[in-house]
């Protein structure tokens, strides 16, 4: 490998191949931007062109925001992803600390159970969880979107692995200072675990911002829709007629994560590839 990198012709071939592949990978994004920037007449023409003759991105965006309450959907996405992540941390961190640093009867069995639960694909539990929420009378609400994901067994596993590397002396010192076990979780363990929590947060937020399956099942009301559901709805209402505004809406929906990703690529890639489970 090393030797190859230094030869001139290979370096050129490498770039040619990678650029060609990159072009294919980017085509949907480019075409999305191009279509969102074209007026109706240019979209429905058999003449293919990338750069619009008449630049209509702002018109299409305005149209998209007029046809669908996109701000509301973005807000819903924010509320849901932040609530899920916050509750996941609240639930997982104390458990992770206990599994990593405390000794108690049944610890290993319970932790084995946690590891087992990582293997359960989210679609498999959908029907019973749906019935449970139905029973509780919380379908079609933020609670229905958030509750099932408040427990992240993967989060517990990940944070436990991290907490195991924290020196015991740190904890003993905190105990000497009279800090309770609960206090240790938040005042001693959490500050040491910020990188791991960040990675997990990116993983969690990306997964739930992009999730389509669960909101599709539990929601009816339009005003509660999350971004993926909203863009699918938009497509069902407008497809075949208004591709410009539809593409503009798609841009709005993917923009928050893509922009965040471009600013912190390394962290995002680390966070998302944290697990192959999802």
């Amino acid at each position, binding site marked *: 490998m*090393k*030797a*190859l*990198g230094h030869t001139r012709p290979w*370096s050129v071939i*490498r*770039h040619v*191949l*990678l650029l060609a592949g*990159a072009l294919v*990978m980017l085509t949907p994004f480019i075409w999305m931007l191009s279509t969102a920037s074209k007026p109706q007449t240019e979209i*429905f023409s*058999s003449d*293919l062109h990338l750069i619009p003759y008449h630049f209509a991105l702002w018109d299409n965006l305005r149209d998209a925001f007029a046809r669908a309450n996109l701000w509301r959907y973005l807000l819903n996405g924010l509320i849901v992803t932040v609530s899920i992540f916050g509750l996941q941390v609240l*639930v997982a961190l104390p*458990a992770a*600390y*206990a*599994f990593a640093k*405390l*000794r*108690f009867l049944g610890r290993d069995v*319970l*932790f084995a159970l946690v590891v087992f*639960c990582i*293997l*359960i694909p989210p*679609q498999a539990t959908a*029907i*019973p969880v749906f*019935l*449970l929420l*139905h029973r509780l009378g919380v379908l079609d609400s933020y609670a229905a979107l958030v509750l099932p994901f*408040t*427990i992240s*067994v993967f989060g*517990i596993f990940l944070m436990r*692995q991290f907490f195991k590397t924290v020196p015991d002396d740190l904890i003993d010192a905190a105990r000497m200072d009279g800090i309770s*076990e*609960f206090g240790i*979780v938040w005042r001693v363990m959490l500050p040491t675990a910020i990188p791991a929590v960040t990675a997990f947060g990116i993983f969690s937020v990306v997964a739930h911002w*992009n999730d*389509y*399956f669960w909101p599709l*099942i539990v929601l009816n009301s339009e005003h509660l829709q999350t971004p*993926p559901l909203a*863009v*699918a709805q938009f497509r069902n209402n407008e*497809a075949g007629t208004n591709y410009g505004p*539809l593409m503009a809406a*798609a841009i709005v*929906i*993917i923009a928050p*994560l893509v922009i965040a*990703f*471009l600013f912190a690529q390394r962290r995002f*890639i680390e966070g998302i*590839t944290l*697990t*192959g489970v999802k």
Partner: protein
Amino acid sequence: MADAATAPGGMAAAPGARARAFPTLRQAGGSRAAYALTAPALVLMLLMLIGPLAGVIALSFTDYQLGAPSFAWIGLSNYQEMFADRVFWISLKNTLTYVAVVVPGAVALGLGIALLIQSGTGLRGLYRTIYFLPVMATLIAMAIVWEFMLHPQFGLVNGLLHAAGLQGHSWLQDRATALYALCVIGIWQALGFNMVLFLAGLVSIPKHLYDAAELDGAASAWSRFRLVTWPMLGPVTLFVVVISAIRSFQVFDTVQVLTKGGPSKSSEVLIYTMYAEGFEFFRSGYAAAVTVVFLAFVLSLTLIKSVLGRRDVHYA
């Protein structure tokens, strides 16, 4: 995956290894605290994961329909009905076809791109970012973009084909091509994820192995790949294959929004069947039986993964 496996400390290693200053105090007070700290997680786990998992299996032996006042245990009737249903077999066959196309595609391309990126030093970060972008972008939104690109009349794909003097096609509306069109979207979306896993694997191959191979006469790039890279990547590759397979089994978003399993069931897949039966026709019992089949496939793949994962450790 690799990150989890590399995290230090096996399950039994750390806690007992060092003599404790206050062993008794620690255990007495610690025990009660430990249960208090784990209780919320364990209760939720029971309620949202273990209970529902047992529930879905139990449901598959009932005739429960959502909203019905009661249900009856009907033994294997759901399974009998399912195995006698043509749609189920189509759905299973389509799912396996999807997996059989997307997994090799996304793994081979992911590996190829990782090797290309790693074979030089220029623009590494840029390439990685570009190839990873589809993993990030909301799949539903991008599926809709793909749909427009595949539009029979005004789509980019047919437009380019026409420009090249070739015949266009109604990709998503034709039963011969719909599933494969979804496969292409699946590969496009997944390969960046695999690329990153392979890049991590490539970085961890010790440099001295290449030097040793060169000393032994492995001069060409191909022989270095065959003698060093490929064997060293073996565990990572198997791991990526299994993960890709698990993810492909879960294909749903693109199907639901683009084809609804059609035309004439040609792109019907397991999770979509489950969704339609369970949440459109509210036949919870029958949908549960479909779920159990899905679960059997995914769990056996996961089992393979955990066995391979253990073997993976010493390369990390």
